[in-house]
Structure formats: structure tokens, C-alpha cells
């Protein structure tokens, strides 16, 4: 009881200062301003600097949430290879299955800011130039194995889109 009274007296002073002088306030003013002006920054998803514009993510998305946006000016990433398009995700369609993340050769969708599929994400700190210098052709058995991991329906979608 005595301990409580001591705490109460200490607390009374602390809280009096809080009420009277707005001390110790921890509401984030940054968030307050961005919400009030309706400008909360979007979740970061596609890492534009590293994307090579291969549109693999576009093809594998089961809900067609991804569109490839043409760049006004192609960006040359490495000699002889330039990026002409980048993917944009429509979050209202996305189901966070992270297929796109898995297929991306450099994991630049959902790269950092969002959940990453519990599968392996390789070595994200490689630079793009290093990646592109590596041989890019996958061995056939690897492709076969990969095709098992991707849902049948997604593959069906790919072929459907290609047929159209």
C-alpha cells in the first residue's frame, strides 16, 4: 500500500506535467501529417533499380494483378541489355501468394519491404551487374523442377495469355 502511494504521488506529478504541458507525447507527427494530407507512402514493392524488365512476374501472377508499364526511355543496365518495361502491381487484385517474388530472377518484387515467401530468396545484396554477368540459362532439370513448384493454374494462365 505504501509503495502504491509513493508510486501514485510520483505518477501524479508525471501525469500532471503530461496533461498541462503536453510532455512525453509519442504520437508520430510524421504519420499524422501524411494521413491528414492523404499521402501515406505506398508500400515499396517493385525495386525499379534492379528490375530487368523480363516480365516473368507478369506471367506467373495467378490473379493478373501485374501489368508491365513501358518505360519512356529504355535504361541500359549493362552493355547490350536495357530495361524497357517495369511491372506495376495492382494491390486490389494481389493475393500475396508471392509467386512473382519466387519467379523473379533477382527478387526485385516484394524485395525488401514486404513479406518474402519463405522459400529461399538467394542473395539479395548482389548488384545487378554481377547477376547479369552470370550465365542466365537454367539447366533443363532445374526448369522441370521449377515447373512443379509453380501452380498448375498459373501455367495454364500463361499459356492462355500466350494463345490470345
Amino acid at each position, binding site marked *: 500500500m505504501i509503495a502504491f502511494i509513493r508510486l501514485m504521488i510520483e505518477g501524479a506529478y508525471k501525469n500532471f506535467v503530461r496533461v498541462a504541458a503536453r510532455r512525453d507525447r*509519442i504520437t508520430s507527427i510524421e504519420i499524422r501529417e501524411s494521413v491528414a494530407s492523404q499521402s501515406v507512402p505506398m508500400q515499396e514493392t517493385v525495386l525499379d533499380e534492379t528490375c530487368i524488365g523480363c516480365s516473368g512476374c507478369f506471367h506467373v501472377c495467378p490473379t493478373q494483378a501485374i501489368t508491365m508499364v513501358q518505360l519512356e526511355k529504355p535504361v541500359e543496365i549493362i552493355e547490350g541489355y536495357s530495361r524497357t518495361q517495369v511491372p506495376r502491381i495492382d494491390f486490389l487484385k494481389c493475393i*500475396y501468394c508471392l509467386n512473382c517474388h519466387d519467379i523473379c530472377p533477382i527478387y526485385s518484387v516484394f524485395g525488401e519491404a514486404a*513479406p*518474402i*515467401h*519463405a522459400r*529461399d530468396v538467394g542473395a539479395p545484396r548482389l548488384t545487378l551487374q554481377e547477376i547479369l554477368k552470370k550465365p542466365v540459362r537454367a539447366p533443363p532439370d532445374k526448369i522441370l523442377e521449377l515447373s512443379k513448384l509453380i501452380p498448375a493454374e498459373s501455367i495454364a494462365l500463361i499459356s492462355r495469355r500466350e494463345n490470345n
Partner: protein
Amino acid sequence: MASQNPVKQKEVVEIEKELSFGPIHPALLEPYRIRLFVNDEYVEDCELTVNVAYRGIEKLFEGLPIERALVIAEKVCGICSNVHAFNAVRVIEGGLNIEVPTRASYIRVLVHEIQRMTSHLLFFGHAFEVLGHETFAMRSFLLRETFMDLMAYIGGNRVMASVPIIGGIRPRADLTEPLKKTILSRLDEFEDKYTDYVNRIMADPMVMSRLTGVGLLSKDEAIKWYATGPTGRASGWDFDLRRDMKEYKPFDFKVIVLNEGDNKARVVARALEIFESIKIMRQVVKNLPEGPVVNRQWIAGKMDYTIAYIETYRGELMHSYGLDEHGLIRNYKIRTPTITNLAAMEQACIGDHVTDAMVTIASCDPCLTCCTRAEVVEKGRSRVMTDQEVVRNYGWRH
């Protein structure tokens, strides 16, 4: 659930009335239904209907490649997200003998403990909200932000951090030197504030008078209903799987066991566990060995039905599945702690005031998304019906 378990033989009491709450109700953060059978204001019997948020999650796993399944495993629950991913990979690692590098194992433990903190602090938030103490609830949510931030730093998302993967952890979640420093300094900061917070609560006579001596659960009952985790430990049942887990071998920590078995003990048990978790986290960060964080030398193939148990924040969690020859999941089963803890709570709240009974139910940290599954309904001869059939046959009301 109670209808399945008519174990407790009591003389039949006259029930004056029934009060039902939920599924949308301030005391429930999640949809479930509480039916209290009361005389005057005192609870004579209690039934919880937990099947409300049914998603058929175990069925969703069926036939998925094991790597893809981890996306769902994590979404079994947004409170325990990490522990489900963790235990899902432990199943296959045990079944196919996949070696996990030590560094990865350390970091898994770190994230596991971080989420234990968020979970326990959420418990305080919820428990105090149910007690009606808004300020303490808010303070606890404020303290929780420390660990939400750490989760986001390590895994990239506040809730779904996806740290464990088969054979190790995601390389992104590896601890860098600056991150280690941040973790240690945030822990120190947290410990100071948290100590004050706990002392303040413990000294508050009004809060304590609400908690002490209410919702008694004896050790025998705890064991009978298999109330694991802090719920059982607060009743004197010395049971903590972490002592047997090889991941926890290198760390030194105490298992908090209290004997009172009332609501206060359940709150105190969690409050003290947080200090132990801080200890473990410090050890992880200070003793983190160098080395690789993931072992990629494995191929998913045929695996027998394998079981893995883990000590989560609320008790014992079981994941189990088998793999077919293509590495596709067969027969995924999850048994979560809340399902048994709630059965214990149904017993514990008998004899309490209605308002206290809500606190008792909250004191086992109920969270049900994971444990909503098919229910057995017996009518005449025992027969199994799904809820949908029940409603089709009997309508919504009778």
C-alpha cells in the same frame, strides 16, 4: 467444445438464465461465441463456440509444394505468424534430416522470442482492455511497438516476417552489426520502461483486487485439460518444451512456474517470462556465431508423416504432414495451444462473477483463428456433422 467433453460430473444445478456474447463484441478480438449460464451474476457453466472463423486452412495445404505451403503456414495466424513458419520447417527438417547452420538457428530463436514479446504484450493490452483499464492497455501497446519495429527491421514486415525457411533463415533476415547494436539498445530501453510498467501494475490495488483469486485452475485440472504454456505454468504445471528443444540448448533461461493458478498468476507468469525472453535475446545477439545462414543442400521428396512440437507463446503447438514423392504436402495437421487452453478456461470461469469470467477467458490469451475446425455434433446416435449441415438441417436458431 464442452459438449464433446462431459467429463466433469457435477450435480445438476438450476440455471436461471443464459447470457450470450459475440461473435462481435468488445471483449472478443476475434469471432467466437461465449455462452454463460448464470445464476444471479455467477457463472454456473460456460460454453465457448470457437468454430466461427472457419477457413478450412488445413485443407488449403493439401497438394501444395512444400516451399509454397510456408506462405499459408505463416498466415495461419497473424499473432503467431513466425511460430507457424518455424514449426512448419521444423517438420521437414526433422523428417528429411536437413542440417540447419547454427547461426540460422540462433536467429530463429531471436525472432521467436521477439514474437513472444509482441504476443505477451498484446495479451496485456487485451487483458487490460477487458479489465476496463484503457491506459494500461495503451501503455502495453506502446511498449509492443519496440518489437514490431525490430520485426520489421529483421524481416521486412511488422507481422509476416517470414524469417525461417527450409534449411535456415532467409538471407535478408541475417543480422548485420548495426542491427545487432540497434537490437541491444532497444532492448535496454524497453527493459527500463517495462520494469516501471510492471511495478506500477503490481502495486495497483484496484487491478490486483480484480485479478487475485479469480478464475482458479488447479494443477490437476490444467494437466487434465492439457492447458499448456503460461496458462498451465501459472497453475504449477512445470512444462515448457523449450527446455527440450535443441534450438534452445545454448541458452540459459528460467522457466517461470507459479502455483496460484488464478488470473493474477497468469498475468504475472507472462510478465516474468518477458524478462527471461530479454535474457535469451541478449544471449543470441552477443554469442551469435559466424557462418552461413542457410543450407540449400536438400531436395524435397517422399517423407513419412512427421510431427514437430514447439513451445509457442501460448503453449504447445503441433504441426505435422507427410510429403509424397513429388514433395507435395499430404495431410497437414495443426494442433494449436488455444484449443486446449480454452477448454480449461471453460472450467476455470465457473463460479465467477460474469464480468470476472470475461477476464478469466481473456487470461488464457484466447485467439482462435488457428483452431477453427470441424466440430462433432452428436444427436441420438453419435454422428458427425459439419456446421453447414447443422444449419441446413436445423436452421440458424433452433
